[in-house]
């Protein structure tokens, strides 16, 4: 997930960034689903890997700019950003290394859990159709580039 998002942010080609971001959305949704938050995971995939990716793709096509413009003297912002990134990574490690977690609250079966138990095939079919369509469009976009 981190590698995919890192690639999405660092690649110059906007179409390839979009594809990497799409895979990151998919991975995050699968993580949510695997840990028991099925509705949140599926909503995440449908919203970000589906709707938002299509809107971004439309914007890239509309604007006709396939690549991010090269840097022109804004290196200090890059240095500040890199320093911020290093400090945040160190802070995240120090703070959360010893995080003991929330109290062991027992999970109660909610409506969405019930929906997932009763009608999983509808949601899975939607997911498969959407994923196939998005991967196909994204790959076509990359080839067109």
């Amino acid at each position, binding site marked *: 997930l*981190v590698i995919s998002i890192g690639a999405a942010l660092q690649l110059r080609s906007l179409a390839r960034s979009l594809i990497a971001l799409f895979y990151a959305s998919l991975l995050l949704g699968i993580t949510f689903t695997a840990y*028991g938050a099925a509705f949140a995971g599926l909503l995440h995939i449908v*919203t970000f890997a589906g709707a938002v990716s299509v*809107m*971004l793709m439309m914007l890239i096509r509309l604007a006709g700019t396939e690549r991010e413009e090269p840097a022109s003297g*804004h290196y200090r912002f890059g240095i500040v950003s890199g320093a911020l990134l290093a400090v945040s*990574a160190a*802070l995240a490690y120090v703070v959360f290394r010893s995080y003991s977690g929330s109290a*062991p609250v027992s*999970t109660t079966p909610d409506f969405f859990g019930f929906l997932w138990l009763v009608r999983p095939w509808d949601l899975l079919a939607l997911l498969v159709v959407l994923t196939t369509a998005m991967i196909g469009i994204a790959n076509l976009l990359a080839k067109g580039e």
Partner: protein
Amino acid sequence: LVTDQQLFLMAAAFLFFMGLGKMFTSRSLVKTIMAFQAAIFGVNLGLFAVGVTEAGITALASGLVTFSIAAGAAVEALALALVIVLFRRYGTLNPWAIRRLRG
């Protein structure tokens, strides 16, 4: 050594700050929106990680993540609309060029 929850929280903080850093340094508004999306992913993962227990995910965390997804998508759609307006007006997606064009 490191639990899943701690790993998620570390990844969440990393994603959030990575997105934030790129938002400030990007030279394309499309990339800025992508960086914003990465920051939203970090927030979602953080909210999710706080609710991870041995018995599964708490209902509160699941609801908070769902709300965050909806709010993030709405803000992102609004940002996309604003970017389209800016592109039609200035003909570029480079924020530095837009600043120069504004004078």
